[in-house]
């Protein structure tokens, strides 16, 4: 079995480590960025699992939605700002958005006033996500779908993707960017 709801004190060690990974990731270090997202997903899972007691089915979907949001909105992180505050604001926004859409069906388990909690716990036991990003991907138009498949799933470079698809390099970059935004919108509208 894997560890569940593991405690890291006040989360300051996580804060420093994750912040460092993200800052390196924003500068183009893909390995650091991967480690950041992977670690962040365990914190988000613990955060949402604790707060969606009546909606455990939704936890993994919300983790994925929040990861996509963090990725699409990563240019809004200011390295001078505490990472905890940034992640918490995004996680809380996505959680509130989910609950607003399900208004009345389930009440919030705990009040949302515990900012410093968000990086303090982690939970690496992924549940099954009900939404399937791979399926949603198929619904994107070619100009977004193909760049995402070649670059993000097959790991091709921009230049290679441009050659394979016949698109320009800037069109490839725009396609990935807009496609991931469109995916985030589809995930939001699934409910």
């Amino acid at each position: 079995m894997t560890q569940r709801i593991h405690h890291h004190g006040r989360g300051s060690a996580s804060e420093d480590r994750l912040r460092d990974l993200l800052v390196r990731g924003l500068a183009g270090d893909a390995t650091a960025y991967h480690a950041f997202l992977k670690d962040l997903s365990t914190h988000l899972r613990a955060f949402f699992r604790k707060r969606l007691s009546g909606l455990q089915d939704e936890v993994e979907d919300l983790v994925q939605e929040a990861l996509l949001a963090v990725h699409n909105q990563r240019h809004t992180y200011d390295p001078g700002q505490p990472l905890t505050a940034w992640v918490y604001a995004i996680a809380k926004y996505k959680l509130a958005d989910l609950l607003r859409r399900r208004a009345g069906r389930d009440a919030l388990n705990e009040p949302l006033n515990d900012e410093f909690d968000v990086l303090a716990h982690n939970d690496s036991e992924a549940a099954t996500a009900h939404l399937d990003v791979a399926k949603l991907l198929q619904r994107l138009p070619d100009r977004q779908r193909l760049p995402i498949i070649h670059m993000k799933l097959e790991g091709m470079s921009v230049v290679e993707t441009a050659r394979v698809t016949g698109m320009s390099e800037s069109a490839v970059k725009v396609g990935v960017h807009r496609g991931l935004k469109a995916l985030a919108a589809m995930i939001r509208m699934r409910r």
Partner: protein
Amino acid sequence: MKTDELVTLLATGAGSVEPDATARRYATALGWGAFGATLLMAILLGVRPDIDAAARLPMFWIKLAFPASVAIGSLFAASRLSRPGARLGWVPGALAAPVLAMWLLTAYVLLGAPLPERAELVMGRTWEYCLFDVPLLSVPVLVATLWAMKGLAPTRLALAGGAAGLLAGAIGALVYALHCPEMDAPFIGVWYVAGMLIPAAAGALLGPIVLRW
């Protein structure tokens, strides 16, 4: 797709992110918005014909400095509200300061004027125009600022929309001041403030609708 697979998908080929995304986006939005507002003013209203003479009076510059300082404060508010978890800090104080200063000047002028003239100092001759034209001239900046916010990540949508609206209203008032013939502080303290608050309220209502992500 499993979460770990999604993580790999997102991280693969993610590349670097250009810093100062917020600043660049706001610079573009404000440039186009202010250009649009000025164009609207020039075409629909026209610059006041006596602007050369007016520019020699301090009140003309106070009338520009007031909305300009509200614009600067609301630009800080809007850009902070566009980033998750950024705190407003001193920004509300910086927004309140020019308004309070204008109201102090208003009170000073009114108290120094004979009673029968006070109503005219407040109402001027063009208050209805001010109340209509400032919101009208604010439309380009409001649209552009909401576009800028939409590409960032506001989490308090009504507040963010309100800040966008106040920024738009302040730029609208700044541009309108080049047309507006009124030169009394009480007029500015009442109608310019009201004119700026209309787009601010519109932005606060629009925010939760158009800024969702």
